[in-house]
């Protein structure tokens, strides 16, 4: 526990001193301010009388319920936050392993009575906590603004926050693996973003498989789809969880168990490999 506390202190102090923490929360705050300024809702006696988005009048049908509007807003913004939070989290944490592995720094950490697995594990949790604190800040702010503007509060958007942290955890494990092997922050960031971008079109793997002429290429694509994290599906699930039964069919499908299990297994696999590589590494 002391090792974890020491790493959390180290990670947060570094983030604060290097302006990462400030930039992280400034970017998030800009998003929140834009969101707060863009959405103008006219609620009369619990019913939506009018709505403006970025100053533009929106058509509001008589049967449109305020609840539906709120979940729609939260679902849409949660999807946006999903992309934003992943982008910022990787950027803010990818240096954690490469910097620790610097000559003259790693000796200071490894000369303590701490196993390497515990050291990298606590570093990982500290990084995840940093990313989670930003997700929590973003989600809570959006939730409060929507509540302030519509007087409707429900907590489904926090579930979306949980899914964001879940996706970040999986990608962060990959970033740690690259960091342990290459000791390069730049490569960690590039590879993790590359992985996320590469995995996006794989959701349509069935259509792509049908277009392939050889079986092995189809199997390879399916294998990649199964192994890699499901960035698109989890993103759709974020939307789906907030909208609930009102979610479109695609989002409902993404809420199945398979994308979550395979994404979790990918993260666990990457972290296990990172821990083994770190344990075997000679400094």
């Amino acid at each position: 526990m002391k090792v974890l506390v020491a790493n959390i202190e180290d990670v947060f102090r570094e983030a604060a001193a290097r302006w990462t923490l400030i930039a992280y929360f400034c970017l998030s705050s800009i998003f929140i301010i834009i969101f707060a300024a863009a959405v103008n809702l006219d609620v009369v006696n619990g019913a939506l009388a009018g709505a403006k988005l970025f100053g533009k009048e929106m058509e509001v049908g008589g049967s449109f319920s305020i609840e539906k509007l709120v979940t729609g807003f939260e679902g849409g913004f949660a999807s946006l936050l999903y992309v934003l939070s992943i982008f910022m989290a990787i950027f803010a944490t990818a240096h954690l392993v490469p910097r620790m592995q610097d000559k003259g720094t790693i000796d200071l950490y490894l000369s303590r009575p701490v196993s390497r697995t515990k050291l990298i594990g606590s570093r990982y949790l500290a990084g995840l906590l940093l990313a989670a604190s930003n997700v929590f800040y973003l989600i809570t702010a959006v939730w409060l603004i929507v509540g302030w503007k519509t007087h409707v509060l429900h907590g489904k958007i926090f579930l979306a926050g949980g899914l964001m942290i879940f996706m970040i955890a999986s990608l962060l494990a990959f970033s740690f693996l690259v960091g342990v092997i290459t000791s390069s922050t730049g490569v960690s960031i590039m590879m993790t973003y590359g992985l996320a971008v590469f995995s996006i079109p794989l959701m349509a793997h069935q259509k792509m498989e049908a277009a392939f002429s050889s079986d092995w290429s189809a199997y390879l694509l399916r294998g990649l789809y199964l192994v890699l994290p499901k960035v698109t599906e989890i993103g759709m699930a974020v939307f789906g969880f907030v909208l609930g039964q009102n979610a479109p069919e695609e989002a409902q499908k993404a809420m199945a168990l398979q994308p979550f299990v395979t994404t979790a297994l990918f993260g666990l696999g990457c972290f296990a490999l990172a821990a083994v590589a770190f344990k075997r590494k000679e400094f």
Partner: protein
Amino acid sequence: MNEAVIEVRGLRKEYRSSFGRRVITALDGIDIAVHPGELFGLLGPNGAGKTTTVKVLLGLTAATAGSASIGGRPVADPESRRHVGYLPEGHKIPNYLTARQALSIFGRMSGMETAAIRSRSVELLEKLKLSQWIDVRVKKFSKGMTQRLGLACALIHQPQVLLLDEPTDGVDPVGRREIRDILRDEAKNGVAVLLNSHLLSEIELTCDRVAVLRAGKVAAEGSVEGLTRTGAKYKMVAAPIDDALVAAFRESGAGVDRVNGHLELSVDNVEHLNALVDQVRARGVMLSELAPLRSTLEDVFVDLVKAPEVQP
């Protein structure tokens, strides 16, 4: 003597070049034992294996063969480092931390409680003349101050073993003396200190015992006094020294060199030396100084490093 707290037996370390084609032997079966309260110096030219030895002791790199233990525990066990303080050469304490924060993080990683870290930090920074800098970020520190903070990080948890790589690097002469005094105090309190330095004068002034490494082997080991003693050689200052006296000494079988107005004598034993003194007295020569000749540690080091390697 107490049981050794650092024990290295037949330690061997081989590095492989890319694709494993070439094997480089960094350590070739070295044996070292450091006891509680001892100041032990590790000397050697670049690439002799000093840093590799320390790295193996800290579990930073794994030995190819042989064994190494600290406090009776094999170095592969992280618990062996529970009571070890380490100051690496060219260490990089994260420069975004203040001295207080650095001590807090490394103290906690060594299992210390917050209250103990707080009181020990104040005490150590006072001792190392850094108390005014306690809340200043490390990036504002000079090299010597960073080095002193590194020593504080190594000492924060009151270790029983200190592994120090160039501890006085970048420190001014007064600071060096202060660090030497701190190390002596630690040794008096039973701490085993392993000092790795290129500054031979520093080792000579600080250490009780040294080992000289060459090409991964221990070329010589012993007390500083023992290694610097040149055998039966003496310096004699007397007046007047004439050719007849020198000739008489040579007749007795002694080796005689005139050096800067005094004589350097090579004798067979103490009896032989006393016979020469009798001759000095018999001739009415005034003897003002007679002392055994010693080399500096640097002389010993250079001789050992330059000597051709004996093949087994």
